[in-house]
């Protein structure tokens, strides 16, 4: 039961009470009026009766009484015994007796008394000549009030169980009266007594009852009609209120119980409706939005305000939502997805914008996390690809290595076995000439094999058995290497120029010394028939940093072989000393240092320049000291 229905019922009850009071009041007034009417009518009747009686009496008085035949009902009055000619006889012998006004009146009254429904008269006095005419209590009271000057007394009295309207007027002594009453000392004008008339109310009351019953019926119907109308009105209003209320309930339920922040902004940009759910999303209540239409603009994140304003300015009808951030009252930033459209009245007039804001913070966070994950995954894939490529390169290198090793180790074996077989043959045939040189070949091959094995071991150590990187002063390193090679240099009569001001680098000092030593040794070894051997050690600024170089003016290397010289056991000159591992080793060391090594030469006779870079970062656990 709704409050509105309750209120309607309360008003209906009040109306019903008023209506009842009004109808009852009206009926009461009718009843009262009717009663008064009866009294007035009976009083008028009584007055008329009085007037008539008075008229008869006055006539009789003026006549000095009348003579009537003496009979049982009209015997000669004892109270007129003193009167002259009370009893006369007509010439025809009929006995007549005098009937004075009082006697006449009494006889008429007695006649009336015999009929209940007729008006009863009574003549009386405080000093009646005839004792039967003595007044009753009410009459005595009235007679006394006449002496005080009252002209008329009327009242409803119950006589013999019936209601009567009693009216009494005084009797003023007239000259005719003195005929009988002079003896009592009355003078003309004195109040001698009174005549009362009693009119029975019963007959009039019957009429009145009819009227009242009719009035009651009319009022009852009127009351019922009124009550019915009040009831129907209240019911109809209640039904309409219930319909309205249910409609409102539906609208309220649909609009208020939503997780999204729904609103309707009128053409004047004030809020016509804001769902209470906005509190959840932005921490401002819907009342605050009603009070302050600019609040929404203020809570949009400053970075997104431009996009939001553009969206709003381009008008409604957007089917595409836009996402922007809002700043809650507590400062927390949340993402909302906003979608809006223009709304129209029933007449097709624009009526503002209806919008929904959905909290998509979780989605955005998930998206960001996903993006981050995707980034990480992509990075990992890249890294894995890099590693795969690295592994592939390693595998290829290993294959090359195996190939080289199998070939180069097999070579001395063939030599050894071949010449051993030859020696054996020579011994059997007694041919001793070739034995010594052949044995020499066998020994050399064995030495070569030993050297190869040592070199292989050495090569395998690089990257595996390295020293802790230190900060190396390249100037000092060059000085030390040149010091170690001083003997060879002076033997070759070579001029060595080392540039100063070389930078410091992070690296494995002994290994880098090995590289430099190898390069200088190579320069000395492949000097050819150069009359002024010259070796220059220095640094240039390259694109990726410092490029160290060892330049000689020796044999030089033709461009097809400039890469081959770094291959394992590759030697340009098969007769030169060594196994051909030096540059392969140098390359491995430089690569370990993140650098590159290559040779530049304009070909045979123009000298060679071996260049290398070092790109090792300072290890995290090692300090510059």
């Amino acid at each position, binding site marked *: 039961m709704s409050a509105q229905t309750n209120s309607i019922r309360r008003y209906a009850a009040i109306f019903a009470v008023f209506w009842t009071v009004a109808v009852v009041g009206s009926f009461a007034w009718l009843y009262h009026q009717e009663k008064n009417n009866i009294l007035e009518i009976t009083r008028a009747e009584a007055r008329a009766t009085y007037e008539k009686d008075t008229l008869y009496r006055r006539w009789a008085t003026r006549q000095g009484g009348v003579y009537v035949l003496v009979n049982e009902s009209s015997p000669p009055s004892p109270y007129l015994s003193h009167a002259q000619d009370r009893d006369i006889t007509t010439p025809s012998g009929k006995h007549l007796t005098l009937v004075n006004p009082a006697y006449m009146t009494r006889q008429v009254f007695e006649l009336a008394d015999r009929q209940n429904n007729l008006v009863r008269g009574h003549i009386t006095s405080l000093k009646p000549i005839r004792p039967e005419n003595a007044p009753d209590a009410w009459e005595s009271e009235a007679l006394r009030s006449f002496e005080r000057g009252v002209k008329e007394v009327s009242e409803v009295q119950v006589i013999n169980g019936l209601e009567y309207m009693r009216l009494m007027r005084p009797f003023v002594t007239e000259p005719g009266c003195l005929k009988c009453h002079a003896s009592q000392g009355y003078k003309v004008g004195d109040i001698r007594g009174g005549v009362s008339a009693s009119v029975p109310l019963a007959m009039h009351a019957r009429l009145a009852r009819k009227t009242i019953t009719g009035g009651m019926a009319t009022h009852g119907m009127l009351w019922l009609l009124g009550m019915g109308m009040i009831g129907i009105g209240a019911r109809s209003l209640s039904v309409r209120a219930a319909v309205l209320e249910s409609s409102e309930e539906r609208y309220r339920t649909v609009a208020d119980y939503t997780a999204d922040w729904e609103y309707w902004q009128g053409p004047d940009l004030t809020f016509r409706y804001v769902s209470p759910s906005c509190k959840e999303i932005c921490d401002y209540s819907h009342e605050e939005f009603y009070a302050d239409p600019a609040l929404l603009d203020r809570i949009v994140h400053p970075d997104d305000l431009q996009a939001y304003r553009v969206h709003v300015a381009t008008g409604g009808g957007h089917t595409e939502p836009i996402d922007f951030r809002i700043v809650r009252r507590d400062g927390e930033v949340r993402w909302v997805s906003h979608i809006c459209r223009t709304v129209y009245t029933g007449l097709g007039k624009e009526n503002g914008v209806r919008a929904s804001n959905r909290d998509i913070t979780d989605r955005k966070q998930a998206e960001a996390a996903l993006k981050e994950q995707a980034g990480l995954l992509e990075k990992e894939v890249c890294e894995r690809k890099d590693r795969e490529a690295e592994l592939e390169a390693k595998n290829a290198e290993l294959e090359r290595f195996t190939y080289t090793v199998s070939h180069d180790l097999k070579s001395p074996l*063939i030599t050894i076995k071949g010449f051993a077989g030859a020696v054996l043959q020579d011994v059997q045939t007694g041919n001793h000439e070739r034995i010594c040189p052949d044995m020499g070949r066998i020994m050399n091959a064995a030495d070569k094999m030993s050297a190869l094995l040592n070199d292989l071991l050495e090569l395998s150590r690089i990257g595996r058995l390295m020293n802790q990187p230190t900060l190396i002063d390249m100037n000092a390193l060059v000085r030390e290497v040149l010091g170690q090679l001083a003997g060879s240099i002076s033997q070759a009569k070579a001029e060595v120029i080392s540039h100063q001001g070389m930078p410091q680098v992070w690296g494995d000092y002994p290994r880098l010394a090995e590289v430099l030593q190898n390069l200088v040794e190579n320069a000395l070894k492949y000097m050819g028939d150069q009359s002024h051997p010259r070796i220059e050690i220095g640094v240039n600024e390259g694109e990726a940093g410092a490029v160290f170089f060892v330049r000689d003016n020796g044999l030089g290397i*033709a461009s097809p072989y400039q890469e081959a010289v770094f291959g394992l056991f590759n030697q340009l000159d098969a007769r030169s000393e060594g196994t051909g591992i030096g540059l392969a080793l140098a390359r491995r060391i430089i690569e370990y240092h993140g650098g590159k090594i290559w040779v530049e030469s304009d070909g045979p006779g123009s000298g060679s320049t071996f260049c290398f870079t070092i790109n090792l970062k300072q290890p995290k656990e090692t300090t510059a000291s």
Partner: protein
Amino acid sequence: MISGVPLCILLVEDNPDHAELAMRNLHDGRLANKVFHVEDGEAALDFLYNRGVFVDRNQFPRPHLVLLDLRLPKVDGIEVLKQVKESDLLRSIPVVILTTSVAERDLAMAYQHYANSYLTKPIDFDSFSQLLRDLGFYWLAWNKRPW
């Protein structure tokens, strides 16, 4: 069999010991009149084209057989093979690969470049001698030559 033309072999071998072994066995077979030995691919090509120090065609004639090692300084064996087989002039010279390598890759490469035969050097001395004798006999005695 005796055609009156001196039969000559070009041996391309960077290892002097292996070259010595091969030449001894070839000589012992007494099949070739002359065995020329060069130590690298560049020299081999110069010899075949009579360039540089090998310009004298009488002294350095067109060989009847080339014994080619694969791993050579400067220009390697496959490159030499390729150039020979691409040349209209040299294509008809039989080229026999004689190498220590048993790698499938080398084998495939050699035949892809029209090597006439592929032989690996046996470690055993007797096998080595037998191989070279058979080799010389086959190519220089049994085999019909175009010139």
